[in-house]
C-alpha cells in the first residue's frame, strides 16, 4: 500500500500544471461553498437575533385564546346565544400584581409590565395615531430593546416629571417636534393631556419609529381611565429558545394569551424557511458544480494515464492495484484541494466580513453594518467531505474502467 501511495504522489507531483489546476478547481469549489454557507447561516442567525432582540420573548396580554365562556354554557349541556353583547371589560389583566409576582417566581429571565393603549398625538395642526405604552422606566430598560436605541434621552428621563413622553424619531420628524416640544395626546376615552418630549429613539423599524410612544405607567392608566390596570406583560428570557415552553406554562397558569416570539413572527420564520431552502439549494448547487468540476479534472487525468495502467499491469501490477492507485490519486487531489479550499474559504469569509455598508439609518449614524458571517467547522467539514467523495468517485470510476482494459489494447493503440 505504501508503494501505491508513493506511486500516486509521484504521479501527481510529476504533473505540475495539471495538478495545480485540479487542486485549484477543488479549492475554489470548497472555498466558495464555505463562504456561501457562512454567509447563509450568518444572515439567518443575524436575522433571528434581531428578531429576538427587538421583540419581547414572550408577550402576555389580557386577551384570551378563546372567547370567555358564558355562565349559561357552564350550566347547561347545550346553549345557544343570539344577539349576545359581551360585557365591557376594561380591567386588563386581573389582579396584575399577583400575576406578576407568580410569574417572577419561576420565569428564567426579566419581565416588565405595561399598559398599552391607542391614542392620537396632536401638534402644530397634525394628528397622528400612535400606540401609547405606559411603562415603569427602570424595569423597562432591562427588558426592552428600545433602551439601546435612544438617539436622545433615555427611559429614565420619564421620571423627571409626570407629563414626559418618549417618541420615535420618525414620529418627531412627522410632527416637526424635537426634544423639549410639548405635544397633545388624546386617548380613545376622550382624555387629553399635554406631554413634553424628553427622549427620541430610533429602532430602524419604521412602524415603531413613527407610531410608538412611551409614557409613565401612571399617565397611561389615567389617559385610558383604567387605574392600576396592566394589559401587557413582557418577558425577556435568559434563553430565547425557552420562549415556547415558558409561554405555554404562563398561559396555563394565568389563562391569558401568552405569545412566544416564534408565534408572533410565524410568517417571518416561515419566510425564513423558504429562504433557507433557496439558499441551501444554492450552496448545494455550488458543491454539486464543484463536484462535477473535480470529477471532470480527475477523470481526465485518469484517462490520460491509461497507458501507465497498461505498463504497470505488464510489470505485474494487479487490477486492484490500479484501481487503488487512481483512487488514492483522486483522494490526494481532493484532500489537497480541500486544504487549499479551507484557506480560500477562510480568506473569502474574512474579505466578506470586511465589507461595510450603510443602511437606512444614515442620518443617525447607527446601523453601519457588516455582513454577518457565521463561522462553523461544519461548513468546512461538509465542503471537504463533498470534495473528497467526488474526487474519490472521479478517481475510482475511470480507473476501474481502465484497469479492466486489456493492456494489449492500450499498448497496441500506442504503438
Amino acid at each position: 500500500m505504501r508503494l501505491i501511495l508513493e506511486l500516486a504522489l509521484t504521479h501527481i507531483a510529476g504533473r505540475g500544471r495539471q495538478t495545480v489546476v485540479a487542486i485549484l478547481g477543488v479549492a475554489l469549489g470548497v472555498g466558495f461553498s464555505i463562504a456561501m454557507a457562512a454567509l447563509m447561516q450568518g444572515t439567518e442567525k443575524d436575522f433571528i437575533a434581531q428578531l429576538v432582540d427587538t421583540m419581547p420573548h414572550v408577550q402576555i396580554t389580557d386577551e384570551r385564546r378563546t372567547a370567555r365562556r358564558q355562565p349559561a354554557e357552564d350550566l347547561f349541556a347545550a346553549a345557544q346565544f343570539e344577539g349576545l353583547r359581551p360585557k365591557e371589560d376594561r380591567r386588563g389583566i386581573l389582579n396584575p400584581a399577583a400575576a406578576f409576582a407568580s410569574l417572577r417566581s419561576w420565569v428564567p429571565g426579566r419581565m416588565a409590565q405595561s399598559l398599552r393603549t391607542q391614542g392620537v398625538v396632536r401638534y402644530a395642526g397634525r394628528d397622528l395615531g400612535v400606540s401609547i405604552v405606559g411603562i415603569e422606566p427602570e424595569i423597562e430598560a432591562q427588558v426592552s430593546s428600545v433602551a439601546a436605541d435612544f438617539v436622545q434621552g433615555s427611559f429614565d428621563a420619564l421620571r423627571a416629571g409626570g407629563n414626559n413622553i418618549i417618541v420615535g424619531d420618525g414620529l418627531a420628524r412627522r410632527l416637526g417636534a424635537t426634544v423639549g416640544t410639548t405635544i397633545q395626546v388624546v386617548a380613545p376615552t376622550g382624555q387629553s393631556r399635554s406631554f413634553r418630549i424628553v427622549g427620541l429613539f430610533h429602532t430602524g423599524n419604521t412602524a415603531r419609529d413613527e407610531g410608538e410612544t412611551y409614557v409613565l405607567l401612571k399617565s397611561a392608566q389615567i389617559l385610558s381611565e383604567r387605574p392600576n390596570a396592566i394589559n401587557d406583560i413582557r418577558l425577556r428570557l435568559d434563553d430565547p429558545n425557552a420562549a415556547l415552553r415558558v409561554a405555554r406554562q404562563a398561559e396555563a397558569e394565568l389563562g391569558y394569551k401568552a405569545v412566544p416570539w416564534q408565534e408572533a413572527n410565524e410568517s417571518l420564520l416561515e419566510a425564513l424557511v423558504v429562504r433557507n431552502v433557496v439558499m441551501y439549494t444554492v450552496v448545494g448547487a455550488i458543491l454539486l458544480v464543484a463536484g462535477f468540476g473535480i470529477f471532470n479534472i480527475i477523470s481526465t487525468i485518469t484517462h490520460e494515464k491509461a497507458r501507465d495502467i497498461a505498463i504497470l499491469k505488464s510489470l505485474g501490477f494487479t487490477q486492484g492495484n490500479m484501481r487503488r492507485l487512481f483512487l488514492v490519486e483522486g483522494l490526494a487531489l481532493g484532500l489537497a484541494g480541500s486544504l487549499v479550499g479551507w484557506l480560500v474559504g477562510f480568506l473569502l469569509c474574512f474579505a466578506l466580513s470586511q465589507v461595510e455598508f450603510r443602511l437606512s439609518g444614515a442620518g443617525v449614524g447607527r446601523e453601519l453594518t457588516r455582513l454577518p458571517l457565521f463561522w462553523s467547522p461544519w461548513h468546512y467539514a461538509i465542503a471537504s467531505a463533498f470534495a473528497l467523495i467526488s474526487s474519490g468517485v472521479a478517481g475510482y470510476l475511470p480507473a476501474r474502467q481502465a484497469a479492466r482494459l486489456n493492456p494489449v489494447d492500450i499498448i497496441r493503440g500506442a504503438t
Partner: protein
Amino acid sequence: MSALIEAEHLTRILPATVPVTLVRDVSLTVGEREFIAITGPSGSGKSSLLYLLGLLDRPTGGTLRIAGQDTSAMDDDALARLRLEMLGFVFQFHFLLPEFTVSENVQLPMRKAGRLSAREMRERAAGLLEELGLAGHLDKRPDQLSGGQRQRVAVARALANDPHVVLADEPTGSLDSKSSEQVFQILRDLVRKRGKTVIAVTHDMDIAARADRRIHLVDGGVVSDERAAPAAV
C-alpha cells in the same frame, strides 16, 4: 532443457461482427536459455502471440503452461503475480513512466514484488543500469535520455525481478541501426551470460538471422520453426 512455456493449440480470436483470428492453433515449447525470434509479415499475429505467451492477453482456445502451471484457470491477480515473477517485457516504445527517474522506473517491479529492502533495490537497479551502460543516468528522467538509452532502461526494468523469460516486442523497431545493434547485443547477452530465455518479435531480418531459433508466422499460424546450430549455446 525443461520447458518454461508450453503452448498447445493456442488460438486467439478477436470477437467482432466478423471475428478476426489473430493467432491460429500455435503449439510450441520454449525451454531455458533460448533466444527466439518471432518473425512474419505485418498482421501475421507476431505481437498477439507474444502477448499471449506473456499473459497480457488470454487465448480464446488452447492451453498455455508457464513453468508447468496451467494458466487458463488463473484469475487476473494470479496472472499478474506470474508476470511479476517469471516474465519481463520490453516494448517497441520504452513505456517508462515519465514522472519517475530512471532508477525508480527500474525499481518499480522490485517494489511491487516487495522482496528487497529499499537499499537493496536501489543497488540492484544501479547494478543493472551500470551493466547496460547507463551508470551516469540513474537520476535522470526518461525524457532526458536518447531512444537507445531509454530502451536499455526498459531492458533493465524487464530484468528487475530476475525473470526467467524476457519478452520483447519489436525492441529495436524505433531505434537507429547503432542503437539496434546495442540492444540486440544486450538481449543476446541475456541468454549467453545470464541464462535467460528471450523471445523477441521482430521484422529486422538481420536480428532474426542471428537468433538461435526462428519462428515464422503467417496469418496467425506457425509456418516454420527452425533452430540454428546448437553450437551457439
